[in-house]
């Protein structure tokens, strides 16, 4: 063996010069066609659609799985997918879905009503990942198969936002999952690195922490929007942790689209030849959540003083202009949003006025500002806050925390920091997804670190989520927004734009604000050959 190795080294040396001269290829070409390369910073540890969802995981889940319905477009609308049509009963408790007949899983099995029933049952029984969305309203027994292509959901109570969660419930093939079950684990172990879906892609190479490849399904049941001749042979999701490396990979054509560059990088790389920036207004809100129950920030005048002292322009500058200020707790792209009049903007005179009314008329306190360690923009906003509060003689201690620790501390009033920076992406387009964060039942969740308690608001939220009359709901949500702003449980920050940098030959990019930051629908993408 060693002789062989040594001989091969010699030959490799001879070949070296020719390989070295090869220019970087644009996109990756294989014998089957073009492979699009997506450079992202986050791994996909567990692919199982009922166990986890974060942006990178869900992007790959959406590629290999189908849901009953799917979010598309900006503003996001729910499109029929595995279900071609559906109806709701009078009382809003029974939902019946009629499936398309031509959908099939990657192994050839048809997608039947039983597969739908099994998938929802699996999601609910595992009680992980997506389970929270439906479990209060839907029991596994409430799902029934009417016939091969009809499935019925009977909810425990009327729940208007029900449909808005369904796009995130992906359908698995029960036959494949059951075949790979170990000790009644619902196939959890197997689905970690395997898939049993019906989506436009199936899994190719799967090297955890390095790259994840999805190969296009040639005869995908729903067809390809870019046309069979244009569809890519596959997509590789490559983990590139360093923004500098991402940028280099994009410039050298080793990646076709990247996410997570710094705001300054986007400005800079936009000038490069052959590179286009996708820049869209998102639904991710940023707020500096006050602990409204304990400590100095329980004092509403102090909260107002801070809100008026904040340098809001600098928030936008942190993003190099690619962000817009919040005008309400509910993001602009969501139904029911109103511009709340009088939402605080920087006004030092007013800030000092409120400070004088507070328990700390001369400042002289130090407040912690907690942010997720490694989140660059949150750190910079901390510096902005520190600078903004200097005129009030309030000192800010910037504390980076690991996400799990931050969430653990924020789950109790006693340990929750005075100020915590939180980005929140609503999982659905229904205003309830945001409003409910201000409901007392949300206490303990990371987005409810302000421990906001206003019985009037709680009551209005309850009323709005069970009503099926939109006009009535819209009015309630307007009142809710106004009241929350008046109570100032947080500094309402900004909505950052979602940005990606891509090669200009990459076509078919479709933005949808309901997807997570970084998440892209890779189904319609294709490479336009020059």
């Amino acid at each position, binding site marked *: 063996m060693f002789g062989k190795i040594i001989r091969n080294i010699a030959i490799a040396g001879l070949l070296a010069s020719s390989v070295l001269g090869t220019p970087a290829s644009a996109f990756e070409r294989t014998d089957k066609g073009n492979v699009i390369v997506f450079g992202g910073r986050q791994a996909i540890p567990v692919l199982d659609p009922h166990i986890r969802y974060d942006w990178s995981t869900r992007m790959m889940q959406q590629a290999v799985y189908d849901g009953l319905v799917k979010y598309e477009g900006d503003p996001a609308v729910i499109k029929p997918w595995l279900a071609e049509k559906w109806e709701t009963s009078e009382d809003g408790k029974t939902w019946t879905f009629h499936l398309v007949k031509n959908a099939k899983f990657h192994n050839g099995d048809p997608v039947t009503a039983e597969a739908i029933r099994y998938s929802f049952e699996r999601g609910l029984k595992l009680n992980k990942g997506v389970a929270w969305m439906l479990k209060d309203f839907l029991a596994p027994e409430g799902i029934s198969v009417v016939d091969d292509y009809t499935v019925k959901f009977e909810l425990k109570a009327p729940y208007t936002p029900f449909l808005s969660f369904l796009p995130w419930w992906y359908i698995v093939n029960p036959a494949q999952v059951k075949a790979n079950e170990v000790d009644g684990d619902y196939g959890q172990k197997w689905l970690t690195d395997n898939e049993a879906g019906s989506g436009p892609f199936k899994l190719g190479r799967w090297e955890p922490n390095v790259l994840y490849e999805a190969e296009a399904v040639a005869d995908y049941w729903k067809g390809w929007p870019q046309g069979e001749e244009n569809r890519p042979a596959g997509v590789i999701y490559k983990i590139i942790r*360093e*923004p*500098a490396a991402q940028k*280099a990979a994009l410039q050298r054509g080793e990646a076709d689209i990247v996410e997570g560059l*710094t705001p*300054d*990088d986007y400005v*800079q790389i936009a000038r490069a030849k052959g590179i286009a920036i996708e820049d869209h207004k998102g639904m991710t809100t940023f707020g500096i959540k006050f602990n409204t129950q304990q400590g100095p920030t329980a004092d509403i005048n102090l909260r107002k003083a801070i809100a008026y002292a904040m340098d809001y322009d*600098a928030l936008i*500058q*942190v993003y190099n202009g690619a962000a817009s200020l919040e005008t309400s707790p509910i993001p602009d792209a969501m139904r029911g949003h109103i511009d709340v009049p009088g939402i605080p903007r920087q006004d030092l005179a007013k800030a000092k006025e409120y400070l004088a009314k507070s328990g700390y008329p001369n400042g002289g306190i130090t407040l912690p500002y907690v942010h997720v*360690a*490694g989140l*660059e923009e949150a*750190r*910079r906003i*901390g*510096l*902005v806050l*520190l*600078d903004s509060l200097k005129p009030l003689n309030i000192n800010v*201690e*910037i*504390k*980076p*925390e*690991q996400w799990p*620790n931050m969430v653990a501390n924020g789950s109790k009033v006693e340990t929750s920091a005075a100020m915590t920076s939180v980005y929140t992406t609503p999982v659905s387009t229904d205003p309830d997804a945001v409003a409910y964060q201000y409901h007392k039942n949300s206490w303990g969740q990371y987005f409810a670190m302000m421990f906001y308690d206003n019985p009037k608001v709680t009551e209005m939220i309850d009323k709005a989520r069970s009503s099926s009359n939109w006009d009535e709901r819209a009015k309630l949500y307007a009142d809710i927004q106004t009241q929350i702003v008046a109570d100032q449980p947080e500094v309402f920050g900004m909505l950052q734009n979602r940005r990606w940098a891509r090669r200009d030959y990459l076509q078919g990019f479709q933005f949808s604000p309901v997807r997570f930051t970084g998440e892209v629908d890779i189904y319609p993408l294709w490479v336009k050959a020059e």
Partner: protein
Amino acid sequence: MTAHPMTPIDTPMEDTRPLTFRERHASQIRQWRLYAHMFRKSFSSMLGLSLVVLFLILAAIGPLIVPYPEAASGAINMSAKLQPPSSTYWFGTDEMGADIFSRVIIGARTSLWIGVVITGIAAIVGITLGIIAGYRGGWVRAVIMRVTELFLAVPGLALALAIVAALGPGITNCVLALAIVWWPGYVRLVEAKTLSIKEELFIESARSIGAKTPWILWHHILPNCMSPIIVKMSMDMGMAILSAASLGFIGLGAQPPSPEWGAMISVARTYMPDWWWYSLFPGAAIFLTVLGFNLLGDGLRDILDPRSRDR
């Protein structure tokens, strides 16, 4: 090495007139002269000494001489962000418009603090345990040395990483974690030295004329361990600063706006390569400081402890 106080045991003879300082320490002074001469002859030692002196001066008066002292306490100037080096901003500005030159210079104080605290804690704990282990022997020694070996068996950075990850990021936790992994080196050094000294004749004689154990430890054992300890501490100052910067780079170090070099690079690396000055200067500061302490320690070892050069 240390100036011995006048005690009956040090100077047992009857004096008619008090000796002058020069006379009393004639031999030490001669030795120090020799050391100084040897040290001056070595270019690398002098380079090390200059770097360390420069670093100490900057740490002492840094905030007074920099053009924008407020840059270190979190002042922001968004309109001047990411400016390249110029006559206004010698090292350019960072992503918040803070002057990098000011932050690097003031950062010397942070680094000095980190180095002194880590090395100090490690040395105090390590020397104490080392002397006890070496002098007492028996099961005390066995226990101390077992624990020491345990710590020495785990690469320091990996263990420190685990500790900081558990305690949460921040400069204090970072320093604490590094101090926890740093002391065992001193134990092994001092224990070996103590073992070899305690059998020497002058210790025996001191004991035979009734000297107490603490007195022997303080006046005989410790001074005789001093040369390798000084060498190690000089080296460790540099390595502690480097390790703290490494943790800062991983994102577990100092919190903003504290001007810690490693944490600055941690942020700066996302601004590569177009804003190269941002990571270049803090990195160079770490490099030169650590290099200085190492060259100094190396030079000191040559003259104080020539036998252990290869250890």
